[in-house]
């Protein structure tokens, strides 16, 4: 049986939730998300989504590893009721002896990696490796899509374990800047039937 479409019937609670959530995401107004369909999966492209910037970029240039977590979420309605979700993880590093070159890998499946990429090429590579399966969605079913990108935590227990037990520095904990809000891009309403069909580039290509 086909999923009942709620169309644009959005409750007051829904609008309220959307209002509170709006400041959490950066720059979803500057919407330039292009969505394509390869027959099985949706893929995204966003030339103005620059996530290799700010503090994460500083950490990379100091030789650290930065993990980016990408979430692709499909909504039944106008970005209120989540329907399907896909996650991807990208491990990025910066070659301190190279000429402004990055390396990136994703555990997949299947695992992939790339070396000697420029900043823009690294961002594009990550977006190329983000997809969400839509095999079970009817071609004329309307849906909305949101892409979120955030940095993963690098903290581990070694920072609190000592010879004399477990220690937590409260000033350090409270003064630490909070996690950066995720970058988000949106597209919709969409229908598979309307999307430009790309050659197959599924996860098992």
């Amino acid at each position, binding site marked *: 049986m086909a999923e009942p479409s709620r169309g644009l019937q959005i409750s007051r609670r829904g609008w309220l939730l959307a209002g509170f959530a709006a400041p959490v995401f950066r720059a979803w107004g500057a919407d330039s998300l292009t969505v394509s369909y390869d027959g099985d999966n949706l893929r995204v492209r966003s030339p103005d989504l620059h996530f290799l910037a700010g503090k994460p970029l500083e950490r990379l240039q100091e030789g650290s590893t930065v993990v980016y977590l990408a979430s692709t979420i499909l909504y039944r309605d106008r970005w209120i009721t989540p329907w399907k979700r896909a996650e991807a993880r990208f*491990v990025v590093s910066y070659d301190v002896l190279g000429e402004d070159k990055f390396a990136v890998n994703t555990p997949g499946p299947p695992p992939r990696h790339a070396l000697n990429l420029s900043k823009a090429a690294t961002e594009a590579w990550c977006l190329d490796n983000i997809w969400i399966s839509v095999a079970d969605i009817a071609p004329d079913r309307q849906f909305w899509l949101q892409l979120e990108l955030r940095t993963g935590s690098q903290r581990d227990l070694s920072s609190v374990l000592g010879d004399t037990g477990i220690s937590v520095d*409260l*000033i350090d904990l409270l003064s630490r800047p909070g996690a950066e809000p995720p970058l988000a891009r949106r597209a919709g309403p969409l229908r598979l039937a309307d999307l430009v069909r790309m050659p197959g580039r599924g996860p098992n290509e």
Partner: protein
Amino acid sequence: MKYAWLGCLFAGSLLFAGPQDADSNVNAQYTVETVILSGKGWTTNLRSETTDKISTSLYHQLTAIIGQKLNPAALDGLAANLKRELSAREVTHRVVRGELPEQVRVEFEVRPARASVGVNVNQFLYDSKQGWSGSGEADVTVRQQVFALGLVSDGDWLPERYSGITARYEDKDLGTGRLSLKLVAESFHEQWNQATVAAVAAHPEAGIALYRTRTDFQPTATLVLAKPLTLTVGARVETLETETPAAETASANAAIATLRYHREIEGLENQQDLDADCSLRAATRILNSDYVYSLRSAGVRYRFKSGKHTVTDNAWVGMISGRAPLADRFVLGNTYYLRGWNKYELDPLGGNRAVYNSVEYHYGPLQTFYDLGAIWDEGQSAVARHSVGIGIRESIFSLAVAIPLRSGRVEPIFMMGILP
């Protein structure tokens, strides 16, 4: 419940292992040329210089990465160790180009703390015979001074279960770099095991009294005689509210002295640690003490580590002359000494003579041990007891089963928790 704890321990050890992205970093192909440590107004190149700002152990941890392939994830752990040891506000690290091709320098920058507020869990353990024990404290550190308030409930260490509050003030450097001061105040409420209550009633000639509360104040000063030899001297003023109907008080005021030696020897492929100490506690009428006794103890702990193999020997001996309060009498049969035995079966009143030795072997987190000890009172003959055990230990998390070696029934004791 036990399975839940097992799960926690394994999860903790996995987390402690750190991020798995170390070998994904493109810089892991480069060799570490040197490690630079810097702070406000000082810089040390650890390849060519030594420093007394950090311990020998941490110095060796830092220099061990020189000449090796870079492990970026390990740098987070080293920065955390530096931050903890130097009580720093923050320690950052970065990897920069070295002087030679394909080599990098690792730079740690230490930002000194103005003040810190911390919460510490010092001990949290479960023993299948004695139940739960735990202690923790909140502290404020301003430069080298520490103020701490803590809570404790311990049914493991002494003949009694004591629960209460502790307060501590510590000045780690009284100006000379060789002298430190520590003031500790404690107030505990006691609970007694039936075996101890019965033993006190059965042996009135021993002059041992139960008490319902115990209050201590202990000022001590520690002087570095010649690194790594230190001398701690001080006093302990203790008031015991006895369990008689009149709730009388008795005092156990003593002078304290402890000589301690600690040395780490770092080889190319192995590491050795040696800890030795001897203590004297003397309570006399001159100090207005109702209990008059002297307590002498000495211990040696030696650890040899090579790769994943670690062998530890821990030997200890103690003797009390005179009449000491129960809290000062020796105990074997807990999670530290003669594991596997029940302290209330061995000697519910504790003893005034004790000797102990433990040999442990670790392969990575796997642990096996053999404990040997005897506890007795003056005039009695000593009976040697043995136990063996196996377990898992990762960092401060420990899980072990210990079996007392005796004829007849086998009754293992299960222990787990945070054991610094």
